């Protein structure tokens, strides 16, 4: 059997068709590896062994019957815990949802299920996707497979660590300000944040509805493209989803066309505070892309430095509204029945939410309540929405003279566990290069600069930002980049 270390969606599919192995064998091998390794990593919050084995058998049956199968048939996947998979726990790493079981499939899951995918389990994350290190999980921390003393990034840290530690072939994450791309960089895997509206948000627990997107985390750009192709599309259950004309070029890029691209390098992303190893790694990626025949061009995105403030006004505002639904009633209660019998409704809300939400969730709910309150709305929330437009306009103007934009993903490699938990602002800074992409609604991909790392070397990714609905451009460059030795 193909060792799990090398297994990609592509290789799995070929092995399955040539009957080199069965989906059941591979799924069992993953569970064996998870049981052996995950006590050390902490990527998963819950496993779905029984249903996963059943899903794998269904894929094997289709192969045995010679039925046409999808690229994703039988592929063992991990799913971030804020994305609903019917009949599996969905806690979003929050105590307030500790006992919640999803009653339906997210649309992205429905599509993967239709393609025959296998769901191994749900992965750890920062509570309700708020954080950049997975240290905000109410249940446990996740460790970076490249250095167990370091964080895997976040908020999709469990999904990224699962892929880096070979505990799934690929995974789903969600990205509001970098939550797919930052952990992908810290763990040295590929992560795609699609154009806002490309993937249905139905069944994704809303954190910041105007920014959230579901996207793939995978070992290769090609695998990320296969998953994106499957999960994208318009959905009546998400009024902001769009029917974009994505075609074969997502997975079959045309090098001739890509060679004609101009790659923008924004001055504002190569600032003081970026670590020397990140500069070096991103510059080496630029050289390789130049080597493919693409042209590099300096550009300016002048409002970049305001993105962090803008983001941390808009996000808490939407968080305070979205998290109002967790009231200790509708998604299950955390209060003991004897205590419940003695309380009134108002005290039940106060107590459940006071005890059920972690520190970052409370910070954002209170901050959001403040920036939306009468007297402060114009000064904070509306001001931030105006600056958001300026940031989006920067990109629009830049894309008049370039096809894609190349930047670092994070200013530093993975930091140590506990290093940034004391001050929320230092934690927020790890997202300065990813946040503008969400504010503008653009697609962004995080790609490892290096395939083979020396011992003790930490991974560093670079980011490609595309025009709206032009995932094929950044996935295309990435697919050619990863073939360079």
């Amino acid at each position, binding site marked *: 059997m193909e060792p799990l270390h090398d297994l990609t969606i592509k290789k799995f599919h070929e092995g399955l068709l040539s009957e080199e192995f069965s989906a059941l064998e591979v799924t069992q091998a993953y569970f064996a590896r998870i049981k052996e390794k995950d006590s050390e990593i902490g990527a998963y919050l819950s496993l779905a062994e029984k249903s996963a084995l059943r899903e794998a058998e269904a894929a094997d049956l289709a192969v045995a019957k010679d039925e046409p199968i999808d690229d994703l048939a039988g592929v063992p996947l991990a799913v971030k815990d804020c994305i609903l998979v019917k009949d599996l726990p969905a806690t979003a790493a929050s105590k307030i949802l500790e006992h*919640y079981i999803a*009653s*339906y499939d997210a649309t992205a899951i429905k599509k993967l299920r239709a393609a025959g995918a296998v769901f191994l389990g749900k992965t750890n994350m920062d509570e309700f996707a708020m954080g950049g290190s997975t240290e905000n999980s109410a249940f446990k921390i996740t460790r970076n497979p490249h250095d167990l003393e370091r964080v895997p990034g976040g908020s999709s840290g469990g999904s990224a660590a699962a892929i880096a530690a070979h505990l799934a072939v690929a995974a789903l994450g969600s990205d509001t300000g970098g939550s797919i791309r930052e952990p992908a960089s810290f763990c040295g895997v590929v992560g795609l944040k699609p154009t*806002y*509206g490309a993937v249905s948000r139905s069944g994704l627990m809303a954190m910041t*509805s*105007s920014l959230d997107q579901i996207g793939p985390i995978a070992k290769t750009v090609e695998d990320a493209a296969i998953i994106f192709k499957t999960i994208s599309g318009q959905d*009546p259950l998400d*009024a*902001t989803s*769009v029917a974009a004309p994505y075609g074969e070029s997502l997975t079959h890029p045309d090098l001739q066309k890509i060679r004609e691209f101009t790659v923008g390098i924004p001055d504002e992303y190569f600032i003081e505070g970026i670590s020397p190893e990140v500069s070096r790694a991103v510059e080496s990626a630029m050289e390789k892309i130049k080597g493919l025949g693409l042209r590099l061009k300096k550009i300016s995105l002048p*409002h970049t430095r*305001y993105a*962090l*403030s803008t983001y*941390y*006004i808009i996000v808490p505002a939407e968080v*305070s509204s979205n998290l*109002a639904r967790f*009231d*200790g*009633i*509708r*998604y*299950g*209660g955390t*209060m003991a*029945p004897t205590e*419940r*019998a003695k309380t*009134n*409704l*108002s005290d*039940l809300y*106060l*107590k459940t*939410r*006071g005890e059920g939400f972690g*520190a970052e969730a*409370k*910070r954002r*709910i*209170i901050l959001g*309540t*403040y920036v939306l*309150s009468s007297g*402060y709305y114009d*000064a904070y929330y*509306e*001001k931030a*929405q*105006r*600056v958001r*437009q*300026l940031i*989006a306009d920067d990109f629009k103007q830049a894309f008049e003279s370039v096809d894609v934009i190349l930047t670092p993903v994070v200013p530093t490699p993975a930091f140590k566990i506990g290093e940034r938990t004391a*001050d*929320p*602002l230092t934690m927020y800074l790890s997202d300065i290069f990813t946040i503008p992409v969400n504010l503008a*609604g653009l697609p962004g991909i995080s790609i490892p600069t290096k395939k083979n790392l020396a011992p003790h070397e930490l991974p560093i990714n670079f980011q490609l930002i595309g025009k709206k609905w032009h995932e094929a451009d950044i996935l295309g460059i990435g697919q050619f980049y990863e073939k360079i030795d």
Partner: protein
Amino acid sequence: MVEKASITKHELEHLAKLARIKLDPKEEDKLIKDLDSILGYFKELQELDTADIVPMTGGTDLHNVFREDAERENTNRSAGVEAFPESKDGFLKVPPVFE
């Protein structure tokens, strides 16, 4: 933007009440400190003249997305009811609103 960028204890308690979150005194002190530094950071937005900029109110350029005004049967009602901590005859049961 407002000059005053700090939150008093009294204001915090009011916000927590609006948000239906019970805070303990230790949490309150830490939150006041955190919110002060975050709100202080936001001051940089004052530098920008945005008088003529139309606020970007969402992530999409779509306008008026309609669906057919047709009856739909919810086949999954029991799953919602099962998630309630207490129910009676398929309805949600909550503690008293008035005492």
